[in-house]
């Protein structure tokens, strides 16, 4: 890890700061300037001006917007994400972290399934290229991808809960049999993307000289596919896996709503509709930060795995 890499990482992280500021200002302004406020959500249809004034004062909504923003950022710098107005007497942190944890566990299981299925499917399709099996395999998964999640939710919950009666639709915890169907609904549409990427990667490797050498040495086809082709084709996959890691924390909105999972996507929808200013901001900034970090992490990881692409060495900047 030379000085070039360190400098590159620092530059990347420094660039993230203005971008994050821009995002926070935009979302902040958008929320505050929109009609409808948390006050309406708290007090309901009828309330007196005095009641509203007390609450506006409590949450500081009477201050000019720039003052509110500076206060928010000041608190944020001390790790205070603000308060939830939808769940009164709870801070935004108390609301989001447990829900993020629920969604992340489900997302992680789904991620394992997506790549666990997508990679073999991609290798299989690539090895079968030249036959009709290849396009049909890819087309099958593209068809699954084309079904909107909320349609899949309706179809699967009807089939598995109503028709077969093998699952209940209630949420009883992440690691319960009831979560099998939601996790499948989350993961199956993603298989096509991974499979297509893997297929292209394998086809790229197939043209390399060392594959020809391996064949010439008379190695078993199985050995060639597993150790020579798949392993090398997996290298570009690191980016895809890395970039999809932050996504698992956000949860799948339609799956969480459809199967009644109290995850973060469900909460996000409620927070947006309420509106619950601080919770929305916390979620957006959390997602953006995580993504920036993941991007930098991938760059570093790449440098370790494949020295040829070590950044800073050949960038000529």
């Amino acid at each position: 890890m030379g000085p070039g890499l360190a400098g590159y990482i620092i530059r990347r992280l420094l660039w993230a700061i203005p971008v994050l500021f821009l995002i926070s200002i935009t979302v902040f302004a958008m929320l505050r300037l929109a009609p409808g406020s948390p006050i309406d959500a708290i007090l309901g249809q009828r309330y007196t001006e005095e009641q509203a004034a007390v609450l506006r004062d409590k949450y500081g909504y009477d201050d000019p917007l720039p003052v509110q923003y500076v206060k928010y950022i000041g608190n944020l710098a001390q790790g205070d994400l603000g308060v939830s107005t939808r769940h009164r007497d709870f801070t935004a942190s108390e609301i989001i972290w447990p829900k993020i944890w629920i969604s992340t566990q489900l997302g992680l299981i789904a991620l394992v399934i997506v790549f666990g299925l997508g990679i073999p499917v991609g290798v299989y399709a690539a090895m079968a290229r030249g036959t009709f099996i290849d396009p049909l395999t890819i087309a099958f998964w593209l068809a699954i991808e084309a079904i909107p999640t909320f349609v899949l939710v309706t179809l699967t919950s009807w089939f598995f809960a109503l028709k077969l009666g093998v699952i209940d639709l209630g949420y009883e915890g992440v690691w319960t049999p009831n979560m099998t169907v939601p996790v499948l609904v989350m993961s199956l549409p993603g298989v096509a993307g991974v499979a297509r990427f893997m297929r292209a990667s394998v086809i790229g490797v197939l043209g390399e000289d060392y594959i020809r050498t391996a064949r010439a040495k008379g190695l078993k086809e199985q050995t060639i596919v597993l150790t020579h082709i798949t392993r090398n084709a997996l290298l570009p996959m690191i980016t895809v896996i890395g970039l999809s890691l932050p996504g698992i924390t956000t949860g799948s909105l339609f799956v969480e709503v459809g199967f009644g999972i109290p995850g973060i996507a469900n909460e996000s929808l409620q927070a947006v509709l309420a509106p619950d200013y601080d919770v929305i901001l916390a979620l957006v900034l959390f997602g953006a930060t995580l993504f920036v970090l993941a991007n930098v992490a991938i760059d570093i990881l790449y440098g370790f795995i494949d020295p040829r692409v070590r950044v800073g060495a050949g960038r000529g900047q």
Partner: protein
Amino acid sequence: MASETTVPVLLPEPELAPPRRFRTLRDLLRKKIALLAIAYLAIFYACGLLAPFIAPYGLNDQQLTVETRLQPPSADHLLGTDRLGRDMLTRVLYSARTTVVFTIVIVISGGLFLGLGLGLLAGYRGGWVDTAIMRTGEVLSGMPTLILMLAITASFRGRINSWSFWLEDHTFLGDDSKTLVKFTIISLATVPFAWLGSSRIVRSQVLAIREQAYVTAAESLGATTPRILIRHVLPGVMPLFLVGLSSGMAGIAGAEVALSYLGLGIDEPAASFGNLIGDVNGTRFFEQYPYLLVAGAGPVILFLFSWNLLGDALVDVFDRRQNSHR
């Protein structure tokens, strides 16, 4: 990269390349799939654009009697009727119109204008302009897109009435104002995310083309930047840009369907697939009236599937062409 001269060919060729007849069969099937996809898309777009002329009934012709509500498909109503006794085929055609217009609007604003424009700018100007555009795009693509779209649509939601009343009073739009306002809002929510993929593709293409001798030659001859971009860089960028655009189409169309399903996009009295699907409320309702979901979801699933297939086929064809250049 695999040059024929350095490695002596030890194996007979058929071992390396798949047998010829399979390849032709596969190419044929590939092409057939792509052709089918194109054919379906053409029909879909034609139906969408011509919806008011070919729809058998009016969009909101209600027939609120027991015999006319929630009827299965029949000769009178080819796709059945919904809970207000409206013809489903008509609603599907008008939903197609929503999807068609939406995809066209987003392709022009998000794809052509922002994607191509910002990609060209980033690739050709380089420096901090490039960094600013690409980093912004990077972070935006990592955001929980749907949630942000929801935030945008929800924050405009309270203004729909005042804006559409203003339009009704001051323009010729009349009853369509509300739909136009809603349409504008979901477009505003989608566009910020619609340029991300295509601008990245365009930028990397521009970076490669910029180094070509003919671009340097044009520069040294004193050609203006717009001229170089349009005459020399753009033609090289277009093929991959179109490939990227077609791969992103399903996502764009899906965004409108999802927002409308949640009731934050296009809704009554206009029609959207998201709305038709949302009408099938719950599994019990689906069990009783499955044809409503089939009619409402089927056409749009095929539409998204066709774009997926076409995008995949284009990427494949392009990959192969690039490989044969090496």
